[in-house]
């Protein structure tokens, strides 16, 4: 090594700054992504917090809004009702979902494959649709109610606790099922064999080995279901009756404070955010401290059920699936049934409801499709870039991006809608009263799922693949385009379809943000249900289901996409 032969200095890089930025644009993209989220998530939330505690006239910090919250029985009752609803729904969902998961994970029986349709059914049937369907069955004029009354069984009113708990449990048990099923599949079967080898009976083994290992997952899923129940808007609004919960009260307060000081709605919104944040915090510490990682080993194989057990399992599975699919059937029947106002004349078929929805008043359909398309295009592009940044280009800025992108998951749609509507009401940028703010709400609410889906595929792309491309001469941007994107393609498509489908069904944010003429299908359905026109609502419901099912079908059957592979 001869220092004397050291050469004259060759400049390290001769390209100008902008060209370098083009070759590796990631820091800039991270900044832009963060700014977009700051505009549509952080700023609105800050506005919300400000409105709850700052007097608009004097600009001073005042807690009278929160004091009113504590002192007014209406508010405290609603809060207590929310907690009660959350707890009861959680228990019900777990009682339904966890045993189902256990039985499907551990036993083979006829009809087992039907249960795999559960997550699909949950996505295809938005919660307000399910609420409406059960209303048509068990409401005051409900078909099933009348039939049961003929048999001498008098059910309590569906409006109120009965309807809310019943419908919420049927909506949310799928989440409990999916979570517990995944946990059961992650157990190393060897630990159970060890217990048996040491002399434990089947029951003892289940109680002392299987259950404790599953407990963290059980707690985590319980908390997820709890937050979903507390944040749910449609079901308490449609079926709540005289029972007020936090989520319905926020919306009602929003309507009543329209044009005035939005103090109480903001206070209620902040309370609901804090509640969910608390639960998520507890959940995070449970997950980090107690979840058992069993990397090696396989789950115990499924045992073939025989005789009595097999038959009852098949029956139970069929019953649950039938009940979960029932709303779809009810919706279809209702759409084609002749109706006089709130009274449906079952048995008399007609096309007039569908004609009205598709021909005379198709605006909600068009609005839904346009908004969903806009949100999906923006969301998929954003998710592709954001997931790449989060998985492959981690930095302090990107970690912040990751956190802010996931924030909307902790905030209910109604709260987000209220936050957005007040942030962009006045000032330099007025988006309230435009379709843009509605599309932005859809984008912000659904993009976390798209990011998760796209990220999952990126974890399967080792760094060495991109390095190989770069080593062969491709610039970082070129390597992303020619090597990473092609492998991400299926996941990006899955993310896009999920985004489209869930945007179509969104109601809690859009119902706050819409204005005359911009009703979406869910909003229109909600209005029709409110007015009692269940048949008209059903017609839109059928169109909504079709708009959801067709892309899902094409994706899963024709393109064989894995839509539920990520957690």
């Amino acid at each position: 090594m001869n220092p004397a032969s050291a050469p004259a200095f060759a400049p390290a890089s001769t390209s100008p700054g902008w060209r370098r930025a083009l070759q590796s644009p990631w820091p800039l993209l991270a900044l832009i992504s963060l700014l977009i989220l700051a505009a549509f998530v952080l700023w609105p939330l800050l506005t919300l917090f400000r409105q709850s505690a700052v007097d608009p006239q004097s600009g001073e910090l005042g807690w009278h809004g929160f004091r009113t919250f504590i002192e007014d029985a209406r508010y405290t009752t609603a809060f207590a009702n929310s907690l009660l609803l959350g707890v009861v729904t959680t228990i019900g969902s777990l009682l339904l979902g966890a045993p189902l998961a256990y039985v499907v994970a551990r036993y083979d029986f006829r009809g087992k494959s039907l249960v795999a349709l559960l997550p699909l059914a949950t996505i295809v049937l938005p919660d307000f649709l399910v609420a409406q369907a059960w209303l048509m069955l068990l409401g005051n004029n409900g078909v099933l109610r009348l039939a049961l009354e003929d048999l001498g069984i008098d059910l309590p009113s569906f409006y109120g606790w009965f309807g809310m708990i019943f419908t919420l449990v049927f909506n949310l048990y799928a989440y409990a099922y999916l979570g517990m099923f995944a946990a059961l599949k992650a157990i190393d079967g060897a630990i159970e064999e060890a217990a048996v080898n040491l002399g434990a009976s089947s029951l003892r083994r289940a109680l002392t080995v299987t259950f404790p290992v599953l407990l963290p997952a059980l707690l985590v899923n319980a908390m997820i279901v709890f937050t979903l129940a507390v944040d749910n808007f449609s079901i308490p609004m449609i079926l709540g009756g005289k029972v007020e919960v936090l989520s319905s009260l926020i919306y009602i307060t929003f309507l009543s404070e329209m044009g005035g000081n939005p103090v109480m709605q903001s206070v209620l919104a902040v309370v609901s955010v804090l509640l969910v944040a608390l639960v998520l915090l507890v959940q995070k510490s449970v997950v980090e401290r107690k979840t058992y990682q069993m990397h090696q080993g396989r789950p115990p194989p499924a045992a073939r059920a025989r005789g009595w057990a097999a038959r009852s399992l098949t029956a139970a599975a069929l019953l649950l699936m039938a009940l979960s699919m029932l709303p779809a059937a009810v919706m279809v029947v209702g759409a084609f049934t002749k109706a006089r106002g709130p009274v449906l004349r079952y048995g008399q078929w007609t096309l007039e409801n569908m004609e009205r929805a598709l021909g005379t008043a198709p605006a909600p359909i068009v609005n839904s499709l346009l908004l969903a398309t806009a949100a999906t295009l923006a969301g998929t592009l954003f998710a592709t870039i954001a997931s790449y940044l989060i998985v492959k280009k981690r930095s302090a800025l990107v970690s912040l991006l990751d956190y802010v992108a996931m924030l909307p998951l902790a905030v209910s749609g109604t709260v987000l809608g209220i936050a957005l509507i007040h942030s962009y009401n006045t000032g330099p940028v007025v988006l309230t009263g435009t379709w843009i703010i509605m599309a932005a709400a859809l984008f912000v609410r659904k993009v976390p799922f798209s990011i998760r889906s796209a990220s999952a595929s990126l974890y399967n792309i080792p760094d060495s693949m991109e390095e190989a491309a770069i080593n062969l001469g491709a610039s970082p941007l070129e390597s992303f385009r020619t090597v990473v994107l092609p492998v991400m393609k299926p996941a990006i498509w899955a993310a896009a379809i999920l985004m489209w489908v869930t945007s179509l069904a969104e109601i809690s944010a859009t119902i706050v943000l819409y204005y005359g003429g911009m009703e979406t299908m869910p909003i229109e359905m909600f209005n029709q249900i409110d007015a009692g026109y269940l048949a008209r609502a059903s017609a839109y419901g059928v169109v909504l289901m079709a708009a959801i099912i067709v892309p899902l079908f094409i994706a899963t059957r024709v393109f064989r996409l894995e839509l539920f592979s990520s957690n």
Partner: protein
Amino acid sequence: MARITLENISKRYGDTAVIDSLSLTIEHGEFFTLLGPSGCGKTTLLRTIAGFIVPDGGRLLLDDEDITRLPAHKRGTGMVFQDYALFPDKSVFDNVAYGLRVRKLAAREIQARVGQMLERMGLEGLATRQPAELSGGQRQRVALARALVIEPRVLLMDEPLSNLDAKLRIQMRDVIRQLQRELRITAVFVTHDQEEALSMSDRIALLRQGRIDQLDTPAALYTRPATAYAADFIGAANLIRVLARPGALGQARLELPGAVIAAPQAIERGGDALLAVRPETIEIDAASDAADATGAVPAQVVLRRYVGYKVSYALALVDGTTVHADIPAAADREWEEGARVVLHLGASCRLVSTEP
């Protein structure tokens, strides 16, 4: 063909210096190996040459061009990764053609060059296959083909053989070495397998915690290890504590447990030292046979292991130190466990330094 020069290259992660002011030169057309256990910095060094890591200090020169901060995709170094990193969505042909397409070569030329390379690597007929359909050995050859077809100035290989089964690994050593000679390309090879390093390299840099412990040809490294670390890492070695008595060659002596033997080299300073003795250089004799006591170290047989082509003995010196001796099967005298014997250590043992 290029010569690579590293001048005082340093890289730290947090408080740890992964590479510590390291300098070396790799000559034109040399097959140069970076050898060491995991964590010694060999892969970091390779990735610095490739451009995925920018060093905190020092310079990297390719021929005489300073490429320390040159972006990785402009360096013209071809790299073969440990997991091959084949593009899963592209066929074998498209994988190998990737670098040529990036360089915007004409389609006909790409066709010709890829075809030739596939043939040379024994991959003809597999051009349309996907990586998932290939065996481990085939994937490895595709990775090699992809890196070589762009005619790089340097070939970098990051433990390319460690995911192959034993037999294939040995075969591929020859394939790679022959290819490198034919193409007369400078190659930098990273491995933790000392046998691989010895059998393939022109020179080996033995690394330890970010520094070069010894840089030598395979033969020199094996027969004249400078440190206990080198003696122990390359091949097997017994490391025996001795007391050195200074003197010129022929006069210097070493005190071992139970014996005094002639030192294999001149000794300047006396004192405690370590003697490295390769198991295959030890001879075992019966205790009573040795007429001349000088050079014979008394020991007792603890364990005898038959390995087919050799017999491995574990023996204890008078102070309990364990020594391993390998006797070729033909020369074995079937010593029983517990038998008292003497050991002749031969002239190939070496004193090594014991610095940490």
